[in-house]
Structure formats: structure tokens, C-alpha cells
């Protein structure tokens, strides 16, 4: 076996792991902090040589289904997404637990506790548990790499999809990873049971029993997993369960070894026997987990009897936000001396639209017409760089909820009688989840104006290819918007008056108008210009 070391982000370690573990396809939609998994696979020469599928999907649902199709065909597949992306993919995710897998199938979901770049900090482990599938939670980049091999074996052994749960901190942290020799990809092989994936009620009921029957196997795998470790300690006044990355924060505080018994928990379902031993031997149990208090709540149970459990629910740790070494030290009662406080003169520096960004020109026009004449409160927006239009100096938008919600919320508000009712959505977000909302509005002949801010890229995540590139107008036409009310404009300063005029004209029209400001993202344009210069 080769002993090659690479310096990899957690995301990159997972991509390299999947490539080396014989994956035949990656399926994903960009979303911080999961984006770099696909980007790494796309840039990997080895992945190209192996002819691995690695182009972006329209959204997380199509990604999950694509991966499931590859699994059906007997090959190893990975679907990657951020935590809220799993909500979009929830239908295939949960039902694939019931169909089961054929070729190895891993969902890699990157959670974002502390909401560094997200709308919420939901914990995907809870959704993995909901889908009744095994969950892996690496505590290091090396484990992330190795666990992909393990995950595929587990998946094929029990014919089940597996969830790999990581968080921002691991996704975007770099460390040395020892890589293995690559193994070959699976051959095309259809499922033995040709009705395995047909979830007609009669079949689904049988398949569900198979999944339920498998629970004891999944538990046994966790009890015997190399990733779950019972590390004994002399001081039984407290036992500690440290999940995933939290184990590192614990050990950071005990460089010479933890005096208390510790369970390092990286594979779920939670190993019951191991935890039972800890509970019986120790006076109390402290649970350290990044995200929501899942293990803690399970351990406490509804009636909070018998076991003394501490953690996020009892105030030893904050109920929300990402863990760190200092918070864990405080929960252990250890003192940690901080440096001097941040001087008062230090001001927050929030992110903002790049200088020269076309979204700014769009908001200047919208503000002049809409906010200027009708006041604040008429603009529903979406997820992307243009969400920064909520901040000064624009303060143009009044909502950001989920991918695609701008159009449907504008529709609902118009149904309620709001005029004008405006939606602002990016081109990539539009093809992710905005097309069906627009169809709803067209069918109902809603009086709304939809801005599709078309910068030919998925900007916020760093400029990935947008499915809408070059086809936004055709899609809108195809969905039934009247061609006279599909307006395009180049959003630059000298076109401001024309932009304002277009908005005013469309306000006169009682129906669905779509205005498409089209100008490439400054960042991707600069990248392309630099690349062209090099040539």
C-alpha cells in the first residue's frame, strides 16, 4: 500500500476518498460548506482518467436522485449538499432508506452550526436518524477520507444508503491525509430484485420491514465500529460522550489524556452498550456534540429519570452555535485565560456586494421605483449574493427564506392583495427551485414582477456553472410568461434610466412580468480575463 500524504480540506479528503474508493459519480448543487467536494472532484485529473461523473445538478433533489440511479445500476455514488440542501432532497433521501441501495450510496451533508453562511443550523444527524440509516461523523480529515471506504462497504453490505455528516469546521479545515491505493469501480449490475425500487404500497411495506429489521445490524455495526471508542479514565465522577469534531475540542483541553472515561462517538445509531457502560460507571455524563443536542436528548429521554446528563440542554454548553475549545473547557469546569478584550473602536465589517456588481444597479433601479413610490416592504428575495441587498446602502429586500421562495411568496402576497409584489431571484437559484413557482404564478395570472438577476453563475459559492446560463429567457417563455413582458437589460449605471422605465412599464401590466438584468459576475469575469491572459 502506498504511503502518500496530501494536504486536504475536509471536503477535499471526502472527494479524494470517494475517488479512491471506486465511486463512479458525484452529484451535487453548490452550497457552503459542501461546495469544495465537487470542485475537487472536477479538478482531479485522476477522476477525469477514471471517467467519473462530476458535473453539477440543478438542485439537491435531482442530485440525490441521480446518485440513487447510479446506485440502482450497481455503481458507487455520492450526493453532496449543505444541510438545508438536504431539506430539498428530503423526498429521495427518506425514500431511498426504504428502497435501499444497490451500488454503494453515500449522502455527504455539511452542516453549518453558527450559521456562517446559512439560514439555519439544523443538525443532519437527526434527519439521518429519521431516515433510519447509518450515520458517519468524522472527527478529522483523515477519518473523513477513510470513512468513505467504510461507508461504501457498509452501504453494500446492508444495501442501504449511508449519511456522512460533517460541519463547516471540518469541511473548510486543511490537514495532512494519508491516502490509499485506489480500488476499481463497480461494474454495471442491476438489482437482483427488479422491484426493489418500486415503492408501491404493497412493496414499500415489505421494504420498510427490511429497513426496520436492519436496525439491529446497524446498531451492531456501531457497537463494533473502529470509529467508536471507549477510552477509560480513572476519574468516574464524570463520563464524557464526544461526538465527531467535539472529541478534538475535548482532547485540546487534556493534552496529556482525559482523566474521565470518554466515548468518542463517530458512527450512529449511537452504540447502546457502550453508552450503558459509561452511564453505569460514571456519576454523570457530559455530552459534547456540534449542532443540536441529539445524543443528549436521547440519553435524557422524555422523563429525565435515572441518568444525570449534562450538555447543551442544561446550560453547561450554549444551546445554539458551533462548539470550540473554550466552550468545551468551560463545560468541563476548566479555566482558560483569554487574551485582552476587543477594543471598542473595532467595527463590524459585514460582507457586501463587490464593487461594480450588477446586482447593485438592479437594486438602485428597484429602490427608485418601488421603495421610492410604494415604500419599504414589497420585495421578496432569495438565496444568493443579491441577498446582501438587505444590508445598507440598499435595504431593498424583505425576505430570504429558502431557494425559490421569492417568487412563490410574491405570488402569495399578491393573492392577498399586495401591490406591487416583487420577487428578486438569481439565475442559478431560479433553475434550482424557481421554475415551478413561476409556473404557479403564470397559471394563476398573478400580478407580480419577477427579477431574475442573471450573472451567468452561482456567485455566492464562488462561481460554479449555472444551469440557467444562456437559457433564462427561453425557460421563462416556455413556462408561459407573455413574450412582451419578458424584458432584458444590461444593469450598468448608464442604463439606469432605461431600467427604471422598464420597471414602471411592467407595473402597468396586470400579470406576470419577468425582468432579466443580464451581466456577468465581476468575480468570474476577472477569473476568465486572467485565465485568457495566461494563454
Amino acid at each position, binding site marked *: 500500500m502506498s504511503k502518500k500524504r496530501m494536504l486536504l480540506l475536509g471536503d477535499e479528503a471526502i472527494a479524494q476518498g470517494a475517488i479512491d474508493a471506486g465511486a463512479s459519480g458525484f452529484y451535487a448543487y453548490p452550497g457552503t460548506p459542501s461546495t469544495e467536494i465537487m470542485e475537487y472532484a472536477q479538478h482531479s485529473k485522476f477522476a477525469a482518467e477514471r471517467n467519473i461523473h462530476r458535473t453539477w445538478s440543478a438542485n439537491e433533489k435531482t442530485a440525490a436522485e441521480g446518485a440513487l440511479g447510479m446506485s440502482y445500476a450497481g455503481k458507487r455514488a455520492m450526493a453532496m449538499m449543505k444541510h438545508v440542501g438536504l431539506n430539498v432532497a428530503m423526498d429521495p433521501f427518506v425514500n431511498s432508506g426504504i428502497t435501499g441501495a444497490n451500488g454503494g450510496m453515500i449522502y455527504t451533508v455539511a452542516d453549518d452550526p453558527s450559521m456562517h453562511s446559512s439560514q439555519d443550523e439544523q443538525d443532519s444527524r437527526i434527519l439521518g436518524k429519521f431516515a433510519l440509516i447509518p450515520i458517519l461523523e468524522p472527527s478529522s480529515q483523515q477519518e473523513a477520507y477513510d470513512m468513505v471506504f467504510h461507508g461504501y462497504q457498509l452501504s453494500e453490505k446492508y444495501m442501504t444508503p449511508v449519511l456522512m455528516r460533517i460541519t463547516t469546521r471540518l469541511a473548510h479545515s*486543511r490537514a495532512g491525509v494519508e491516502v490509499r491505493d485506489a480500488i476499481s469501480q463497480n461494474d454495471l449490475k442491476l438489482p437482483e430484485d427488479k422491484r426493489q425500487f418500486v415503492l408501491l404500497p404493497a412493496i414499500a411495506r415489505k421494504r420498510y420491514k427490511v429497513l426496520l429489521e436492519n436496525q439491529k445490524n446497524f446498531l451492531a455495526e456501531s457497537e463494533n465500529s473502529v470509529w467508536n471508542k471507549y477510552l477509560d479514565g480513572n476519574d468516574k465522577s464524570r463520563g464524557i460522550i464526544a461526538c465527531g469534531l467535539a472529541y478534538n475540542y475535548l482532547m485540546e483541553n487534556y493534552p496529556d489524556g482525559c482523566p474521565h472515561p470518554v466515548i468518542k462517538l463517530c458512527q450512529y445509531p449511537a452504540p447502546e452498550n457502550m453508552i450503558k457502560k459509561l452511564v453505569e460507571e460514571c456519576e454523570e455524563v457530559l455530552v459534547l456534540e456540534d449542532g443540536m443536542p441529539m445524543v443528549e436528548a436521547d440519553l435524557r429521554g422524555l422523563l429525565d429519570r435515572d441518568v444525570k446528563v449534562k450538555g447543551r440542554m442544561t446550560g453547561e454548553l450554549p444551546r445554539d452555535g458551533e462548539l470550540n475549545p473554550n466552550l468545551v473547557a468551560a463545560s468541563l469546569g476548566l479555566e482558560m485565560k483569554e487574551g485582552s478584550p476587543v477594543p471598542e473602536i473595532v467595527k463590524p465589517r459585514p460582507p457586501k456586494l463587490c464593487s461594480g456588481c450588477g446586482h447593485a444597479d438592479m437594486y438602485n433601479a428597484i429602490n427608485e421605483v418601488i421603495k421610492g413610490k410604494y415604500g419599504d416592504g414589497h420585495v421578496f428575495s432569495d438565496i444568493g449574493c443579491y441577498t446582501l441587498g438587505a444590508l445598507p446602502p440598499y435595504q431593498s429586500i424583505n425576505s430570504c427564506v429558502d431557494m425559490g421562495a421569492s417568487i412563490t411568496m410574491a405570488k402569495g402576497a399578491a393573492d392577498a392583495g399586495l401591490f406591487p409584489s416583487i420577487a428578486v431571484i438569481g439565475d442559478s437559484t431560479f433553475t434550482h427551485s424557481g421554475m415551478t413557482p413561476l409556473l404557479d404564478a403564470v397559471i394563476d395570472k398573478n400580478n407580480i414582477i419577477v427579477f431574475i438577476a442573471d450573472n451567468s453563475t452561482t456567485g455566492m459559492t464562488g462561481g460554479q456553472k449555472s444551469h440557467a446560463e444562456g437559457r433564462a429567457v427561453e425557460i421563462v417563455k416556455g413556462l408561459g410568461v407573455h413574450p412582451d413582458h419578458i424584458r432584458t437589460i444590461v444593469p450598468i449605471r448608464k442604463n439606469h434610466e432605461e431600467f427604471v422605465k422598464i420597471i414602471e412599464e411592467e407595473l402597468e401590466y396586470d400579470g406576470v412580468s419577468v425582468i432579466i438584468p443580464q451581466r456577468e459576475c465581476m468575480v468570474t469575469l476577472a477569473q476568465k480575463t486572467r485565465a485568457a491572459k495566461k494563454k
Partner: protein
Amino acid sequence: MKCDIILAGVGGQGILSIATVLGYAAVESGFYLKQAEVHGMSQRGGDVQSNFRISDKPIFSDLVPKGKADLIISVEPMESLRYLPYLSETGWLITNTSPFKNIPDYPDEEKVIAEIKKQPRHIAIDADAIAKEVKNPRGMNMVLVGAASVFMDLDYELMKKGIEVIFGKKGQEIVDANIAALNAGREFSKKNK
């Protein structure tokens, strides 16, 4: 050997090139390394930091604990102050003094410098000016690497080699210009520490 560093700056200023050079030297020396970066939304002109840890022993946390950083290396003066709670009692604050003003309420520059000078161990260096002096106006980051090199148990020759490896594709001229920036920063720290 253990060195915990907070790299600080504003999204787009390129703090990660500092990490790349130091990372090269650390890995070539056989040290363990963990480096947590900021990707995504904050990159658009917001405050960004990277936790950079090297050690001759395995490293657990990807994050530097508060009160444990040996160095803060900041490419922007106000940003250097944002991470003071991380600096250890014996740690050094190394910062560029040229401000990056992209917010309307940026504090008075003199007050920022005064706060930096309150720190018992600091290097306040006009890295932008020094980079221009060595005719490498884009080499500000390497000036700061040079300034920090004095306080690190990391082979200086390997840092130079890191620059060769990273900038080599762009030609020998760029490599030399960045090594000149590195040397200038190092000289400044030697004189002013």
C-alpha cells in the same frame, strides 16, 4: 515546537497566500498542520480569519483556543485588533498599518494604531509601503510573512522555497520580487522587535 497563528484580514486581501507559504515550510519540516479557513459569504469584503496551527505533535482542534495564539498576523490594522482575545500572554501581534476602508464607520486611524501600540509585543509595519519600496506593490502579504518569520521556529530557507514553489509558474521575476518582500519584512522585525 508548536505555533498557533490567527491570520486576519478582509475578504479578497489574500490571507490564504500567507498560509500557503507557511504551510509549505511546515509540511516540508515534517510538522503536523491544521488550517481552518473561511469560505462562502464573508469572503465578499467581510472580515475573514484563518486558524493556522503547526506542531511537532499531533494537533487536535482545528480552532486555536482563545488565549493560546502565539501570533496574530494581520494584513489590516483594525482587523488585527478583532482577534486580541485569542492572543496568549506571550504572543506577538504582527500587523500591516495600511488600512482597508470599505465601511462607512471605519474608526480614526490614529486610534487604531494607538490600540496596536498598547500591546506589549507588537510589530506595526507599513507592509504596503515596504512592498512598494522593493518594487513589488502586490507583495504586501509576503512582507508580513517575513515580519512574522522572526517569531517562528520554522526554517526561513523553506519559506523562500515555498515562495519558489507557489509563484514559480509566474516566472523567476515574480519569485524574486516576493523573496525581496519577504526579506524586507524580516529585516524590519529584526530591527523593531
